[in-house]
């Protein structure tokens, strides 16, 4: 095993850890915005670290270029959708009402779409 493989092992493991952390956050966090925060972690750090880890294994130049493009895409799309979702779930107090099936997201639009800290990591 050489240096490149060690690099890959470390970064892919870190990426997998952040996916796990994102999952724990998505399932365990109490309110929507925190869950979104956890999702963004998996989105950006998890995928980003896996991609960095895979770079030594990819073919030069197109394999590496595709990986870079994928990472840029992931950051752009992840950030923008997190922003949109944050707008959709934003409530005045930022806490989740004790609603049932689906009503939370529907109580959206009045406050929606303003800049939500914690959403765009």
């Amino acid at each position, binding site marked *: 095993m050489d240096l490149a493989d060690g690099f890959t092992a470390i970064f892919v493991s870190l990426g997998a850890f952040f996916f796990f952390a994102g999952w724990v956050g998505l399932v365990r966090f109490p309110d929507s915005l925190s869950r979104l925060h956890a999702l963004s972690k998996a989105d950006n750090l998890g995928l980003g670290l896996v991609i960095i880890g895979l770079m030594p294994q990819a073919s030069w130049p197109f394999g590496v270029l595709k990986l870079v493009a994928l990472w840029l895409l992931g950051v*752009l799309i992840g*950030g923008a959708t997190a*922003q949109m979702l944050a707008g959709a779930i934003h409530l005045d107090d930022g806490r989740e009402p004790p609603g049932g099936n689906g009503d939370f997201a529907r109580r959206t639009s*009045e406050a929606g779409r303003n800049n939500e800290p914690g959403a765009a990591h």
Partner: protein
Amino acid sequence: MPEIPLPDPRWADLPLAFAVLGLALWLTLTRGDRAAVIGFTGYGLLVAVAWVRLGSVDVALTEAALGGGLMGVLLLTAVARLGSDIDQPRPSLPGDLLIGLLCLGVAAGLAAVVLGLPSPAPSLVAAVEDHQAAIELGNPVAAVLIAFRAVDTLLESVVLALAVIVLWSFGADRAWEARPRALDFGEPSPALVLLARLLPPVGLIVGVHLFWTGADHPGGPFQGGAVLAAMALLVWLARLGRPPPVTDGFTRLGIVVGPLMFLLIGLAGVVLAGAFLGYPDAFTKPLILLIEAAKTLSVAVALALLVAGPPALSGALSMRRTGSTETGAKA
């Protein structure tokens, strides 16, 4: 670090298969329509991964683009438009349980058939490989689509064009000169506008890449066209552009150019190669590329227009809550 042996792939297959089945069952039984449709988009992504495990990246690409992407836009906008996302009681037929048992029986019967498939399995791989060299395509699936079962593909592209015509006919008569409005949802969020400005150039490259690489690697006109259609939908949803009116000549040309090109070259084959849809030896590759390019364009236009809906005088616009973005920007 010791070398880790290759794990048994069933560690991925079994959870994936269970997740697909569980998600399908949930989205059949759950209450809200919108929840079910969101589940369905996730389902499309999972099935795409399953297709990779079945060794078919071509199908996985199609499933990811159509099932995960375009289907989500089509159905979520439909839920919004129908306004039907309230708890609807399940229709209680008297034979509920009986129907459930019968469906279980159908599934069990089909599963038994799957397990009892003849061995060794019938295979057309050798037949395709024998003739693949003649048409200079490295991707066997593309070879089947464009040459060996070309009639299927031709009819299928005609079906797409017909579907758009039928969809347009659902519009009101007095709206005929108007544009499709199914994606007309009022002011978009700034993040969506940003996404719709940055993503389409990337999507354009990916779509054309899929079409071009489809000759020798997984990809092709359907996959490329679906990605291009998705980019058009993004632009329309962000209101950076509007779907063309159905009377627009270029749009109509775009819908039919694929089947038309296929048909013309196929008819020319009667004279030049001695068979309908046959390719003359000297020009096989250029002709195939010509057909596939036209087909990519037609698939893209037709899929985008199928999601955009029939022409209408007023879209979601009349239901739009005014000023939501403006107040949001100030806050």
